[in-house]
């Protein structure tokens, strides 16, 4: 087990080298640079040249990459070209927002997706099954930003039930020791803040979790249908176990393996979908951070941000892989 973990962590190094090379050359292939982004019509050739000289962008690309690689090797990620704050500081400030949103979206997708898929499998070919198929297709096909705008229009603008932007009402002040606002409100023992933060999470979580929900529902349905026909399920029924006991201890538990694989794969989807969701909901996470950085050609933020996201994805996939051993003793014992 330990060797497995270490081997996976070592794989991080070639992954990150590859990502760093890709992102470095890709953003420089984009038209425009920080000078034009900063000054617009006021970007005279002299001003552009001065800015490019200051940022070392007038040097040959291999010189720029060598400087960048050397900084990376010493774990220096530089400063944001727009806010002038260290990239690591900005990442630390914004990362909890995305994690909170991704967890909420993942929770929504799992809590509603698995039962939906399970019920569809149990009522195979019934109207309920067909309805769940249609819902899933709608969920997968609807672009996140469109769904987000629709949700905001219905539940915020028309009904006034939920807020449209941000993580918390600007009129509430609590300390932020962790920057996970739900946790911070619990630490501050502020129930109003907790409710307010939860309300701000609902619509973005639904928008972001809609596609994973649909996928999880379909996979659960297929997996449950498969497992239902296994011999050990028939044996359990023959032994006289009630239907609920059969469903939960035998069917669902064994169906979970492919489902958990899919849940793990959704992490990448959640992080990339967060970009659109955060922009529409003005959610100050790393998704909107990266979008703003790309618009401004803020090279240090794009380079650092993409690397950090890659690290997170690798770590979470590792955790998911480790969870297989927990779920299926055969996998654990075979190592």
């Amino acid at each position, binding site marked *: 087990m330990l060797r497995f973990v270490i081997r996976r962590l070592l794989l991080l190094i070639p992954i990150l080298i590859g990502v760093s090379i890709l992102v470095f050359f890709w953003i420089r292939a984009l038209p425009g640079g920080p000078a034009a982004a900063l000054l617009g019509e006021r970007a005279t050739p002299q001003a552009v040249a001065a800015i490019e000289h200051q940022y070392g962008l007038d040097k040959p690309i291999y010189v720029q990459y060598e400087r960048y690689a050397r900084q990376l090797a010493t774990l220096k990620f530089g400063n944001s070209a727009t806010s002038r704050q260290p990239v690591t500081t900005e990442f*630390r400030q914004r990362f909890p927002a995305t994690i909170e949103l991704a967890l909420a979206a993942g929770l929504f997708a799992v809590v509603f997706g698995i039962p939906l898929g399970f019920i569809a499998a149990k009522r195979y070919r019934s109207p309920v099954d067909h309805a769940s198929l249609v819902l899933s297709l709608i969920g997968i096909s609807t672009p996140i930003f469109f769904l987000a705008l629709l949700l905001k229009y219905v539940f915020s603008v028309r009904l006034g039930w939920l807020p449209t932007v941000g993580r918390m009402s600007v009129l509430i002040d609590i300390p932020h020791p962790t920057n996970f606002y739900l946790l911070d409100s619990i630490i501050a023992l502020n129930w109003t803040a907790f409710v307010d933060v939860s309300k701000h999470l609902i619509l973005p979580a639904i928008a972001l979790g809609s596609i994973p929900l649909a996928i999880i529902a379909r996979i659960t349905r297929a997996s449950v249908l498969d497992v239902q026909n296994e011999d050990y399920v028939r044996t359990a029924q023959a032994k006289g176990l009630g239907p609920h006991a059969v469903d939960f201890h035998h069917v669902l538990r064994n169906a979970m393996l492919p489902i958990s694989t899919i849940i793990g794969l959704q992490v990448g989807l959640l992080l990339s979908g967060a970009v659109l969701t955060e922009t529409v909901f003005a959610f100050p996470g790393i998704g909107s951070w990266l979008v703003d950085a790309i618009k401004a050609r803020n090279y240090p933020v794009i380079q650092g941000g993409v690397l950090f996201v890659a690290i997170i994805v690798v770590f979470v996939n590792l955790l998911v892989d480790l969870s297989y051993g927990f779920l299926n003793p055969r996998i654990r014992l075979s190592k």
Partner: protein
Amino acid sequence: MRGKLLKLALPCVAFFALIAAGCGGSNNTSSSTGGTGTSAGGGGGTLVFGSAADPVALDGILVSDGESSRVIEQIFETLVDLKPGTTDVEPGLAESWEASADGTAWTFHLRQGVKFSDGTDFNADAVCFNFNRWYNFKGSFQNPSATYYWQTIFGGFATYDPKSGAPKDSLYKSCDATDANTAVITLTSPSSSFLAGLTLTPFSIASPKALTDFKADEGSVDADGIFHPTGTYATEHPTGTGPFMFKSWTRGDKLVLVRNPNYWGAASDNPTEFNGTGAKIDQLIFRPIADNAARLQALQTGEINGYDLVEPQDIPTIQSNTDLQILDRPAFNVGYVGFNISMPPLDNPKVRQAIAYGLDRQGVIDSFYGGRGEVAKEFMPPSLFGYADDVPEYTYDPAKSKQLLQDAGMTLPVKIDFWYPTDVSRPYMPDPKRNFEAFAASLDKAGFKVVPHSAPWSPDYLGKSDEGQLQVYLLGWTGDFGDPDDFIGVFFRSPQKQWGTTTSHEMDGVQKLLEQARTETDQAKRTQMYQEANRQIMTILPGVPYAHNKPALAFQANVSGYVPSPVDLQSFATVSVG
């Protein structure tokens, strides 16, 4: 089973606890709970404004973006100010001023009894401290992206660094505090446009004590060449004399200002009188919302009380909602069809006139400006002094165009290369492609054959225009400060490749006139000179201006007292909610 659950759960919890511990505590928030709702009656309460982005920093001289200026304008004040809603200069921290006979020494008589919000005195020493701080900037502070407005108004610095991009010469010579309430700023040559420039937020007067204590000038330049401030002045302790004070700033979330209880001015009921109006609201919060649709929806739900940069297509939605209102910002921009007058056939004045008569400008304004544009007669907006009503005008007349081309001995149709930018929307040109298509269609009827060209706005289009590679092109400008030099001076005071004036001499007379107007200290004479310049420009026609566009702001209906400024410098002190 439970043991195994625990074995998996423990590392997960530990992982998240580590992350939580590392991620927190980096923002400043006060620990008071509850909300201050907006109160009725125009006194007190909170106003939440939806900005398009976070400010960069709250040190005026080091920023040039609109969102930084919007906040800085509330905390700080300048020596001279603008009459709300106009570009007329009026007293600010200086009650009066006069120029020496040769126009180089400007004596400012300062308001007395004013204090910075940290309790220190505002006086002539503080004024000179600020000016000398700016003049003595070195290193990366001299880069145009760092001190754009100092370089626009004053030029260079005390020490010249050829690599920095800053000009060699400086308009600024010195500042002397002849007594506690008198500061004399001496220039190296006469200039009258510098007075309007002093209304800009980069020239806000900050507390010398705060600048020093919180190390405003300290920082390091990283390997990428980006300056990282190590002091906390610009992010946690911006200290001025204004009607609001800084309270807290959580990037991406909110920036909170509170009323300055010791502001030198008394509360005034006249919203157009900004001579010391104390803030009417208790708290002013800026919430950054980058997405335009999100800003509109936040206004509709009441999460913000107002926002700027309203998209033209959203204006009817807002106007049809009785709970909301649209405010107009006076137009302070100009969209134009530019010419490179050194490129044939544009070197022929008759051809240029023919183009002017061949452009259906009214049609473009009516169709693509959402009812908020007006046809531009000259290269600066009507609200600016020096605007001339009697410039030659060119209403759409295709027959006249053809006649002019024939008089010029040209064979019709005359081929011209017409450029427009892609991937961009500008305040004076919301939809460049549509403007181009309409203009091309009208020119094709007027004896021309338009060859279309396009390029992405940045850097290609802007770079090409700067290098003078575009023959006929769509471009424009938004003014920074209330001086004609910031419009026609920027375009025509010095030879530029964009207009072809580095080789053509047709505009030499205008250049001389604009140089003289810049240094003329008599306001009446200056106005006449700029009016004459506008007449000459519209006769020679280095281009054809076609649009002034009024940007819009949106507020909830119960917000009053906000007076939009043409140059986006307005105070929230006069604003009340409810």
